[in-house]
């Protein structure tokens, strides 16, 4: 629909465009005052480190949503990738190979998603829902449902190691986010992702290879799930099919909370990352402060609504 809008004051515009940042700041400030333990580099790095896998998945998921699609299979791609890595490591003992396998497998499964979506021309919501079932079954079959423990020397380096006093996952996160941010906002591919999500027919008519774009965004999403899996599996030194359950929705929630439009065509990588950490902060706050954990969901829900309401203030009634 044509976004006919009247002019309105700057601050509201800001509220509309940066609601998630504003709330991130509010929560941070509150927690800093509420607990001395919160605003310490130790704790903040911890938060980054712990949520690196989810943030990576959400960052790549942004491409999927912006292109007007859904990827509900990230959690099961994550599961397959992590059990495979664990299995390889425990079978071959070749740590590098095992950890490298995770992203490759993720990439492959993602590509399959893309092919299914484009070949069958069905909505990705259903396609990836189905593939997620298939993939999680795969994960179970690889392990027989049992747990695969990795004892191989150095397997935990990626997940637990540090570099310049900062956990390696944090470095990976930084790198991935920077890369994807640029990819979406600064490249032709990124532009075509926006166009595909904004109006696929128009994009096609303009010579954008819409199907290719779709396949690529799903591949990217799968790749990210694989990278996340590599980090997580190396961190816990064991693989099991349930790994990552629920991540797919957490990621999508974070992406949309960030302000990326579920209709496609509008969004940014930084938004999704901000969304992930806004939710993470709430959880962290509940652990640090002596709140009744039964209220955590309540608070999270309310804060999400607050963010959205804030953004809504910007938009005026048509």
């Amino acid at each position: 629909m044509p976004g006919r809008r009247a002019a309105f004051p700057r601050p509201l515009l800001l509220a509309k465009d940066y609601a998630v940042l504003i709330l991130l700041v509010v929560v941070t400030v509150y927690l800093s005052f509420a607990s001395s333990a919160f605003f310490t580099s130790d704790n903040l790095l911890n938060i980054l480190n712990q949520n690196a896998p989810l943030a990576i998945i959400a960052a790549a998921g942004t491409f999927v949503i912006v292109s007007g699609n859904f990827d509900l299979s990230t959690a099961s791609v994550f599961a397959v990738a992590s059990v495979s890595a664990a299995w390889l490591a425990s079978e071959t003992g070749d740590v590098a190979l095992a950890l490298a396998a995770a992203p490759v497998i993720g990439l492959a499964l993602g590509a399959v998603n893309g092919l299914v979506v484009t070949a069958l021309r069905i909505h990705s919501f259903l396609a990836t829902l189905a593939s997620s079932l298939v993939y999680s079954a795969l994960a179970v079959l690889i392990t027989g449902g049992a747990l695969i423990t990795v004892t191989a020397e150095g397997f935990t380096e990626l997940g637990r190691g540090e570099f310049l006093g900062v956990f390696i996952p944090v470095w990976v996160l930084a790198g991935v986010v920077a890369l994807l941010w640029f990819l979406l906002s600064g490249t032709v591919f990124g532009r075509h992702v926006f166009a595909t999500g904004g109006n696929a027919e128009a994009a096609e008519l303009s010579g954008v290879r819409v199907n290719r774009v779709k396949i690529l965004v799903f591949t990217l999403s799968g790749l990210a799930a694989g990278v996340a899996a590599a980090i997580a599996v190396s961190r816990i030194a064991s693989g099991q099919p349930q790994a990552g359950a629920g991540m797919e929705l957490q990621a999508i929630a974070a992406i949309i909370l960030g302000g990326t439009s579920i209709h496609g065509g509008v969004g940014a990588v930084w938004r999704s990352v901000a969304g992930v950490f806004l939710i993470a902060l709430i959880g962290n706050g509940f652990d640090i402060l002596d709140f009744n954990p039964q209220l955590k969901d309540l608070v999270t829900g309310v804060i999400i609504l607050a963010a959205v309401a804030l953004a809504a203030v910007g938009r005026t009634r048509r």
Partner: protein
Amino acid sequence: MERLMAAPAGTGAPNRRAVVELRGVSKWFGGTHALDGVDLDLLPGEVHALVGENGAGKSTLGKIIAGVYQRDGGALAVDGAEVGRWDPVRAGRHGIAMIAQELALVPELTVAQNVFLGRERSLAGVLRRGHGNDAAFDAVCALAGFRLPPRRRVAELGIADQQKVEIMRSLARDARVIVMDEPTSSLTAHETEQLHRLIAALRDQGRTVVYVSHFLDAVLDVADRVSVMRDGALVRTANAADETKPSLIEGMLGRPLAVTFPERPPPVDPSVPPILEVAHLATADGVVDVSLSVRPGEIVGLLGLVGSGRSEIARAIYGADRITGGTVTFDGTPHARPRPHRSIAAGLAMVPEDRHGQGLVLERPIRENIALAHATLFATAGVISRRRERAAVNALAERLALRPARTELTTSGFSGGNQQKALIGKALLGDPAFVILDEPTRGVDVGAKYAIHELVVALARQGVGILLISSEHEEVMGLAHRAHLVRDGRTFAEVVPERTTVDRILTALFGADQHEGAAP
């Protein structure tokens, strides 16, 4: 308008090798045989017009050339070489671009981003900075002869400006063959003239322009050759020089038809109280200060340049946009806080200017669309009687000569012009006492246009008040009793069409107006 650029006689000489050749091309849509063995040659450096009734197959033909649709039969050759699989990307590589009849733009991207979509200049996939607002964009503007703000989101443009973006996009591809499917359907006379100059210029650069239009004068004006279509088949291809308006019409309809404006209904006695009265109306969407009144049985026009805010005035009266100032009085009672459902209930209907964006639910059957605003008419306790509904809808379809006359078909399956007819039928179903018509004949063929004009007049004779908006000023001039001149969301003068001319109106409209470019 006098002939713009003399096309050398015999441009149609087939000794020049065709850029695009179609042989026996056919296309099916479900049951409909949209194209039936069409042969067509497109020569370099020619303007090739396609004319035909609504639903004749013009757009389908254009889309097959541009690779949007796949042909079900027949052959397509480019530069003499037969092509197999054909899609917009391949067509683009061969220098074929298309301006679709139903605008296809990415609303969330800016003007420049849309113009260069798929043609982004980059270093190894990395976008060049300042992209869009630079020489390249200026060049396209220069070529096009008009300018748009490169950084404005397309969603914020009026539909006419959006059409300009489409034109610029095809230019940015510097295509050898440009299919323009009714490119002027929402341009004002002045802009149409500009576009025609542009087309002639392109032709003289040796490019081919396929020009689909229902404005037969314009066709005879700019085209070198004309292909006439009827029911998906090619009737004939001839030099424009050898065709006349009546000959084209006869070719299209298979029967002669005199196209003049129907006789205006008798002027309404000024003492009759107005059915609609608007005083100092203002909205946040472009209406600044508008006052006008319409009496029962009266046809009042709005004359303005694109972007003058005519549609916004219509939307405000109808209640689609929030009113920030002024009053609307309907049938003697204040129409306070108008909203569409209140307007409809009060007997005030509107035909919006953008049939896809604002008018129709494309994936639903035509029947449901026509009945949408008045489903309750056929319902008892909220339960719809399909029988009564179908009867009423079919009657209207009949009256509007809807083609195909199958009201159960999905709306997306109807040709642009026929969708427009359905849109009008939708407004008339409830027998409104007052109708706002915003571009009512956009994209309909001569026959249907004549029918719609008669319909409008008939309505007026029945005592219906009508507010008529049309970028085709002749239409307003030919039908309206009175007309208000609109500029920048203001009504600044009132004219009686019978006593003035289009040129004088245009001069008045351009008045102090710069941004519309050179005034005539």
